[in-house]
């Protein structure tokens, strides 16, 4: 029963992905590895699509994955699975709002959860780097890493990084008004620019 499985897998994400948005990415990478529903390449594409469409990223990811696995019904089931634990938890918390907010154990648990969630997303980020910047399969990655590095992708990454974070390149560059404006643009503009570069320079090879 693929729908039940979809619901269950996404409910797990909804229950354990703490901190919203990109916190779902490491769980989806894990899902890609163990279910075979989508590849890590498709996952990176899903993240791009989510950034370009309205609505919470986690919901978009669930819908997209659900669709690729089980069509329109799959997309609805996966999304319902994702939001189900939130609804239950919030309906309970709403009754004990103040007690929950002031509970020191909750606060302490999150003291540990937040850096862990950041660590998981950082590992997911390296996973995306592997498929975006290198031209290699899963096997013997480290041995062939240097031989398979895609220099055009690395250069594009550095240029994008520069325009998104001019503040990191000293006060003079960071203070530049035009650069500041560019860095404040919505991610959709950077994704579109990267798409155009990819088409013009035939990135897929």
């Amino acid at each position, binding site marked *: 029963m693929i729908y039940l499985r979809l619901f269950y897998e996404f409910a797990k994400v909804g*229950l354990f992905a703490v901190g919203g948005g990109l916190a779902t990415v490491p769980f989806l990478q894990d899902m890609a590895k163990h279910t075979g529903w989508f590849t890590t390449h498709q996952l990176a594409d899903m993240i791009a699509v989510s950034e370009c469409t309205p609505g919470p990223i986690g919901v978009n990811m669930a819908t997209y994955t659900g669709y690729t696995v089980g069509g329109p019904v799959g997309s609805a089931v996966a999304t319902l699975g994702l939001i189900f634990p939130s609804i239950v*938890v919030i309906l309970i918390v709403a009754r004990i709002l103040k007690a929950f907010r002031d509970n020191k154990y909750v606060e*302490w648990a999150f003291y540990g959860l937040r850096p862990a969630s950041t660590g998981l997303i950082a590992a997911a980020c390296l996973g995306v780097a592997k498929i975006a910047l290198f031209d290699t399969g899963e096997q013997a990655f480290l041995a062939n890493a240097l031989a398979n590095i895609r220099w055009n992708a690395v250069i594009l990454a550095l240029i994008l990084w520069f325009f998104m974070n001019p503040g990191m390149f000293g006060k003079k560059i960071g203070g530049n008004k035009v650069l500041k404006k560019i860095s404040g643009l919505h991610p959709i503009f950077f994704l579109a620019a990267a798409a155009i570069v990819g088409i013009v320079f035939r990135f897929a090879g």
Partner: protein
Amino acid sequence: MKELLDLFLTFARMGGLTFGGGYAMLPILQKEVVENKKWATNEELMDYYAIGQCTPGIIAVNTATFIGSKNCGVIGGIVATLGVVFPSVVMITIIAAFISNFAELKIVQDAFTGIRVCVFVLILKAVIKLGKTSVKDAVTLCLFVLVLFGSMIFDVSPVIFVLLAGACGILAQVFLQKGGAAK
């Protein structure tokens, strides 16, 4: 019934208009929920956001459940939540159908190969931003490094790391507080 419909439509409109979710949604919630509909006060909204940070799930979804349940009970919470995700589900389903039909085209592959590079840079930027607020001292730095390498080396579900880190957070704080009291 009219109230429920109003909840659904209002949250559907907000879900369809915010790019990026989470914090991008806050100004729109303030305008619609606090100023126009008066379903919650600004203080309540900030509380919901704070709790949304410390509960599982997506912040926009959690906030919708809160406001819906406050005004129309459990049913209201469910209706508002379905409303906020409705536009995304419809839109992404259409896009997904579109992409799966065009994925074979060379031009689409070129575009997505470029886009993946940008996705990497966007996530890296988000990680640095998250790290600034979540990695504050030696304990949190340790947890960050351990989870980062642990999740790359061991093939286990991220769920394990989340559970262990929560437990470590509590233990570390109990230990720190005791140490502080002894002094």
